[in-house]
């Protein structure tokens, strides 16, 4: 177990290094960073001095080393547009994105798992067929379109829910702001998290359904039924738990992509999160923000994958014992 965890950790580090290299390359070679920073009237001498001060004349491996050692301390330099440290900008935005992602992942699981279970256990019922048809919409409609539809229906026509922003937020600790504690904050969460989570929900539902169909055909489920166990035990304790290994994998990966691809939803709903900031950074060629966003997203992906790998051990006892 420890050996396995260590190995995975080393692999995760390698992935992060490669991403850092990409990020560094972008930072260093997409356009001249000095041109981005200074005005048009800065003299050549001043530019050269700035270049020297920023270490841009050092050998490239040394620059990369400096880049990494700063990145480890979350120091990604100063944003070109805002003239503020990138880390501070992110700290302000991260809570919004994480709360949105968390809510939509929760939504996807809470709705998707029972629907998948139902459809898997009653494959021929008309309700399961309805679930499947509806889920097709979730998969085939693009996220932004669903968002706009929802805004049109619930904000414009019915006027039940706000169409943009986070509502009122409450400050917790020095840097975390939450929308969970106010009514307007919760209301504001509904539409964006459904928009963001719909695709994942469909995916989870279909995955669980397919896995359940597979598992209920196995001998141990037949044997459990032949022992007279009630359906509740057979379906939930035996069948559901055995479907979980692939579901956990996909859910883990999807959580990563929820965070990463919140960009579109955040734009549609003007959600003040990292994704929106990233999009603005792209428009303004704000390289420090872009490279920091790249690093942060990769870090979350890798971290979530690492956790998923560890979860396998908790679910499947066959992995726990070392092979003979």
């Amino acid at each position: 177990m420890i050996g396995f965890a260590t190995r995975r950790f080393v692999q995760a580090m390698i992935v992060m290094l490669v991403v850092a290299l990409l990020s560094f390359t972008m930072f260093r070679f997409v356009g001249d960073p000095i041109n981005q920073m200074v005005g048009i009237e800065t003299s050549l001498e001043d530019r050269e001095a700035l270049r020297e001060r920023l270490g841009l004349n050092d050998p490239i491996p040394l620059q990369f080393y400096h880049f990494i050692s700063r990145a480890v301390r979350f120091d990604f330099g100063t944003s070109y547009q805002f003239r503020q440290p990138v880390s501070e900008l992110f700290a302000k935005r991260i809570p919004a994105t994480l709360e949105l992602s968390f809510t939509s992942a929760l939504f996807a699981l809470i709705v998707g798992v029972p629907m998948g279970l139902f459809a898997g256990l009653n494959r021929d019922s008309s309700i399961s067929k309805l679930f499947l048809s509806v889920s097709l919409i979730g998969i085939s409609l693009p996220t932004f379109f669903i968002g706009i539809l929802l805004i049109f229906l619930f904000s414009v026509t019915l006027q039940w829910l706000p169409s943009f922003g986070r509502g009122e937020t409450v400050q917790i600790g020095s840097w975390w702001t939450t929308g969970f504690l106010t009514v307007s904050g919760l209301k504001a969460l509904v539409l964006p998290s459904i928009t963001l989570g719909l695709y994942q929900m469909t995916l989870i539902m279909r995955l669980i359904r397919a896995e359940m169909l597979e598992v209920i055909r196995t001998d141990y489920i037949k044997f459990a039924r032949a022992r007279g166990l009630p359906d509740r035990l057979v379906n939930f304790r035996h069948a559901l738990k055995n479907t979980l290994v692939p579901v956990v994998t996909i859910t883990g990966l999807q959580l990563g992509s929820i965070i990463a691809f919140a960009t579109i939803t955040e734009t549609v709903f003007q959600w003040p999160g990292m994704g929106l900031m990233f999009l603005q950074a792209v428009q303004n060629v704000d390289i420090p923000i872009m490279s920091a966003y790249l690093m942060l997203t990769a870090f979350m992906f890798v971290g979530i994958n690492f956790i998923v790998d560890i979860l396998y051990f908790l679910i499947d006892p066959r992995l726990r014992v070392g092979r003979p």
Partner: protein
Amino acid sequence: MSVLEIKDLTVEFPGRKSVFVAVDDVTLSVDAGKILGVVGESGAGKSTVGNAVIGLLQEPGHIAGGEIFLHGRRIDQLPYRQKRLLRGRKIGMIFQDPLTSLDPLQTVESQLVETIRTHLPLSAKQARQRAVELIDAVGIPDPAERIGQYPHQFSGGMRQRVVIALALCAEPELVIADEPTTALDVSIQAQILELMKKLCAERNVAMMVITHDMGVIADITDHVAVMYRGRLVEYGETNQVLGAPDHPYTRSLVSAVPRPDIKVDRFPVVDYIEKAGAPQRKIDISSHWLGKARDFSAVSGPLVRIRDLDMRFETRGSIFPSRRKYFQAVRKVSFDIEQGETFGLVGESGSGKSTIARLVTGLYQPTDGTILFGETELTSLKNRKDVLAMRRQMQMIFQDPYSSLNARMRVKEIIAEPIRFHKLASGNAEVRRIVDDLLDHVGLGTAAGQKFPHEFSGGQRQRISIARALATRPRFLICDEPTSALDVSIQAQILNLLKDLQEELQLTMLFISHDLAVIRQMCNRIGVMRNGELCEVSGCDQLFEAPQHPYTRELLELMPSMELLSRANLATA
């Protein structure tokens, strides 16, 4: 009163076009403390009878007629909930494959306790106590310790004991065992059968054993019911039915069982069972394609010489050699295979017999030792052309005819592939002619070439495998359990076919099986393997009449008694 009474049971599976009658008008009964055997080949409907009794027929199958009584109470028409309460409580079930019938993610304890508490009003603590007693009763050592483990920590035989304990959780009156020992080795099989016999007598349980294995039937049952295509063809006391079978089907079934006690030239095949297909013409090797251009270098002495063969698999990798762990699959094995003979390798699962087959064919590289094919050292071949030439001379027939044929290729393409690959024919017309010819020789008929593998039964697929193996005109054929997935009557046909082909084509064979009876009928000389080591090599009759090694003697003793069957054979002869 009988514990179980089945009257005129008919089970139907409605299909898209027609209704398939899986069980047709079957009447049976089982008494307390007695064992009823239900025997038949695949598709005979024997498992369906068991499933109908316990109320677990696969959709859309349903009971179309007849009555089932448990202790005089009619149970086939009970509503779902009440049927469920019978399962486990009154009727226990044992399944075929112990490796898949336990939930891999739950400990043995939690599976036992949940079953006990479903049926009996016990506290968690009492249920655990009872679970430990049950595990002890089915003969698992250290019950209190092992009960907390997961199924994968038990061996196959031990898992089947757990399955039996689960079936007995709530003291059922009837136990249905569906092929309880088919997936087990002969020594484990003997133990499990012994256990079932003991439990049946001790607990006064009525038992219904569903199997295709005549040996099992002869060994433990009091009564036997023989089924054929959904019908009950013969039913009575086991001695009576096996000793003096009445119905022609029973006679044919009994006579098709390979005999470990006497060597016969050919397996008796009875036409009653399945038409063997188009008549096979004899091959005259001197003029036939299969004999043509057998440009093999002449060999004096044995064709295959294996010396000090070692094979180990790394089970834990490490960059430090001292920390690596290995599993020794084959240890210092040496033997010769003479030209034209059939050399048998027998042993239980994990004894390394299949590993040897893979080493000889070059699928694995041996860790140490040499394999000489004629004068050529196989492990030293580096040049791709030489390797291919060598592979052409040896072909393999695998155990599972379902997974060893590519399901997306037509049969004629499957057989033509090796011919094209080794460039053994001059043009497409010739390839076609050869394929047709081969299909004819293995008894499938040329029309079979247009079909896909899934259109054939297991026995027919194994014929396709044989045709494919012959397509390269080999002189050495390796058969790895070629018939263990097949019914006895089909097995007899396939083994006869192999014998004929060997004679006609002067093939040398390495024949691997766990079935001593089959080995005796097929082989000239036999090697007995255990834990990767070769215990004994001797001539066929000598091995069975005067075994030298204690393990060989043990194996021979474990074979189900064939006394009843041999009497039947004398009667039919």
